[in-house]
Every structure is written in structure tokens, then in C-alpha cells.
């Protein structure tokens, strides 16, 4: 399997379907456990951002998740019809903060930046498209 795509509704309760999709993709492409881990984290972060911040109302929408194995790269593409929301504009957390002042805001995007090799965001035809790429280590 070089490519897999699913659509989930914009509700947290539907997010476990993405976990199942990642497991199938990892097994079919014989990817390493570390890649499996990183894909789980970044897809959870991306979907949580979209579902938590992407909608002004509780209107139903579909989020498309696509995983592709392109040569030596894994490409994750996530598309949603929520309001314009570029997660890459979110500032990183204050890493020097003490336990009492430390906040979690921005951590999800920081994980995405750190675990993947490339992140890009585009607004296309009224949709947000986030693309995350990671090279498969030999």
C-alpha cells in the first residue's frame, strides 16, 4: 500500500479511526516503530488543532487524512473545511518557564516541527491543507 486516505467527521470521538489507519499503513509499508510513534503524535496534534480551533460553530465537517509513501519519504496530508487556520503561525512554548509558570500552548506544533522534516500549510479552494513530510531513515 503506497497510499491510504480516510475521511473523519470533525469530532474527537472519530479520531481513533485515524489511529487505526496509521497502524494499517505502517504495517503494509513495514515502517519502523519510531516512525509509527511519530506519525501517531503528529496526526493527533494536527486533528486536535483542527477540531478544537478550526470551527466557530458545531457545524459538521469532514477532515481528509491521506498518508503516502513516496520513494524514501512519508507524506501526511490533512485537509479540512474549517475557518482559515495556519497552525504553523502558533508560537512555541516558553521552554525556560518553571513548573509553576509553564504552559502547554504551542507544544503540539512544536512536536510536529521537531518530529517531521518539513511542514507546509496552504489555503486552497476554501480548505486548509497541512502537509507533513518525513524521510525514512535507512
Amino acid at each position, binding site marked *: 500500500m503506497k497510499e491510504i486516505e480516510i475521511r473523519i467527521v470533525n469530532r*474527537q*470521538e472519530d*479520531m*481513533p479511526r485515524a*489511529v487505526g489507519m496509521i497502524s494499517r499503513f505502517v504495517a503494509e509499508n513495514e515502517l519502523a*516503530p*519510531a516512525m509509527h*510513534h*511519530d506519525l*501517531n*503524535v503528529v496526526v*493527533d*496534534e494536527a*486533528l*486536535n488543532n483542527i*477540531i478544537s480551533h478550526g470551527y466557530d460553530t458545531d457545524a459538521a465537517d469532514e477532515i481528509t487524512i491521506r498518508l503516502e509513501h513516496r520513494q524514501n519519504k512519508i507524506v501526511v496530508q490533512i485537509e479540512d473545511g474549517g475557518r482559515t487556520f495556519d497552525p504553523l503561525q502558533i508560537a512555541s*512554548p516558553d*521552554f525556560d518557564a*518553571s*513548573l*509553576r509558570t*509553564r504552559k*502547554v500552548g504551542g*507544544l*503540539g506544533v*512544536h*512536536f510536529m516541527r*521537531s*518530529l517531521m522534516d518539513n511542514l507546509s500549510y496552504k489555503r486552497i479552494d476554501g480548505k486548509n491543507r497541512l502537509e507533513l513530510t518525513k524521510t525514512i531513515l535507512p
Partner: protein
Amino acid sequence: MELIESQQAGVTIVEPQGRIDTIGAKPFGDRTVALINAGTHHLLIDLRQISYISSAGFRALLIAAKMMDRANGKLVLCGMSPEIKRLFEIGAFTNLFTICGTRDEGITKAT
């Protein structure tokens, strides 16, 4: 999210199973907050059955650590996979938590 709980040497041990992600963080966070509110001052969270933690899970851990700090108690983490340890490093959390390798070391630190 299933949480296995036990007591050893006066330490409450919580061993969550599966994933502390957007979905799993809620029951995990609710339970740790409830334990600390109920007077648990020696808490060990054993992560050996956790495959990954996302930022929602780190939020729950941070809330528990702050509460325990205010209660003058001890919160210790153990059993992390190398991937989870890496997330603690990436997120600059290693200085904010007491992290042990094994459960036995964790119990000693949490006592």
C-alpha cells in the same frame, strides 16, 4: 483508556494503558487530579504500557505536577519508551518532572 492502580510502600502507582492522546488524556487527567485531590501525596505514573503521548497528555501531566507541587507531594514518572523520552526532551519537560527508568527506582523516589 484503562488505568491499572496499585499501592506499594505507601506509593500509589497508576499504570495507564494504550495512548495518552487527545482522547486518552481526559480520563487519565481526571483520574490523576482526583487522586491528588483525595490526598495522594506519593504518586508514581508508570508509562511502560503507553505507546505515545501527545500534547494533550503532556497538559494532563503538567496539571498533575503543578497540583502535586502545591500539595508538597511527590510525582514521579517511570517506564518511558525511548520515543516518549524523546518527546520529554523535545518539549523541555525533563527538568520539570522526576523521571526514573524502572518501577522500583520510581517507588524509591516517590516515597
